[in-house]
């Protein structure tokens, strides 16, 4: 009988610790950025489709293996239409619009605030037509 109380206390302690840990982990998971690597090779994105939760920061690590510059611009159809005729030489002022110079890596963190589907496109001349298009699907209930 004497051994039962410490054992019970130990079990309760372990259970509390486990619950606390799980909860803390859950909180951390919902606020820490989700890291998604994207490689650009031969003027194509890999992967060309990613799925992310709404409301959670997502860090895109974009590696350009090509000897030419590329862009990663994510947004809706209206934004892409503007960029098709835009004149900005480089992009880096907005987290959703990144220029990745030849053979370099860039990171950007974006939080998508509504579910849906957006595209990421390189708007350098001819690149979109060549296939530099990808899709971000934002799912509800992150």
């Amino acid at each position: 009988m004497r051994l039962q109380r410490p054992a019970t206390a130990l079990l309760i302690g372990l259970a509390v610790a486990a619950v606390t840990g799980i909860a803390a982990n859950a909180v951390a998971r919902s606020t820490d950025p989700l890291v998604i690597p994207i490689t650009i090779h031969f003027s194509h994105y890999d992967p060309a489709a990613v799925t992310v939760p709404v409301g959670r920061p997502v860090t895109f690590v974009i590696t350009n293996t090509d000897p030419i510059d590329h862009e990663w611009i994510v947004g809706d159809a209206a934004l892409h239409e503007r960029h098709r005729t835009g004149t900005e030489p480089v992009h880096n002022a907005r987290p959703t619009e990144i220029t990745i110079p030849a053979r370099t890596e860039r990171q950007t963190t974006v939080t998508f605030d509504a579910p849906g589907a957006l595209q990421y496109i390189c708007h350098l001349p001819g690149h979109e037509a060549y296939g530099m298009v990808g899709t971000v699907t934002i799912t509800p209930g992150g």
Partner: protein
Amino acid sequence: MRRSPLDRYDRPGRRTRLLLGVPAAALAVFLAATPALACGGLIGPNGAVNLLRTTTFAGYHDGVEHYVTAFQFAGGGGRFGSITPLPDVPTSVEKGGDWTLQRLVRETSPVFLRDAASPAASASGAVELMKVKIDALDITVLKGGAADIGQWATKHGFRLPPDAPEVLDFYAQRSPIFLAAAFDADAAKARGQQVGDGTPVHITIPTRNPWVPLRILALGKTGGEAVQADVYLLTDRAPALLPVPNGSNGIRLDASETASDSLLSDLRTDRGMDWVPSSGWLTKVAVDGEAAQIGYDLAVDASGAGRPSAVDAGLAMPSTAPLSTPVDVGRIFLALAFVAMGLIGVTLIGRSHSGGRPVAG
């Protein structure tokens, strides 16, 4: 002043139009040497995209390829450029003759004839093997991998189209030698060059067999865009070609015949063409297809062996490592399976021979 053998065909001022009449044989990449527009839009500034047009001749004699191509001034200003893959390191790059290309066109265009009868290492990793200035052309022979060449080109103001990384890799895997030509349109104007004037360049390349890059013609084009070019070959005997030009694969055999004495004589009298032999075989391959079709080069076996190289044609890559392919992994598994079956068989046979009794150790 040297008289061109074409004079006997031409009326005064006729040659320029003749050259313009050649299908666009862009053995070159169009590359605008201007800052790239980052957001969509046109390829060049002010929409004034002046595509380079070239006509190409590859002659092969005594183990040396003589590659003659013309960079044509198409008007406008600024700087433009091209990158041409080469099969090997050239021994010389010099101004070509004045009439070689036009004379070849005449040889295979009988209808028109009737009408006319009326090294220093650069920061990017690419090695500069040779630098030559010919008229308004600044030519650099480079050695390097696809990334090296791409970076060199970018650093020197060339604007590469999106398919350039893959196409450069396609060539660099087989030959790391490239010829970059920057055309200064302003300098051409200052020299008095008129629209349509070509600057012929003669590249001398000792190599085991001639080889003509064709895939580069489709660079910067979308899949359905037309690719048209004329390639003339002069070899000691009838060459074997790969792919075989059959018309349906984007290349067509327009001429394959013994080179006429008059052609050889006319070619021989042009600048730098004294290498032309006393006899030879003339082949004209017309490239006439869609960009998506032209995913290969023209391999030529001029030896008479009849075995053009699949690697030269870009249909196989030299770095293919047999053991690294999934097929070979499958074979290994298959071999292991046979070994396992054999061991099981041996065990069963052993057991049947021993009557299933344990063997004393």
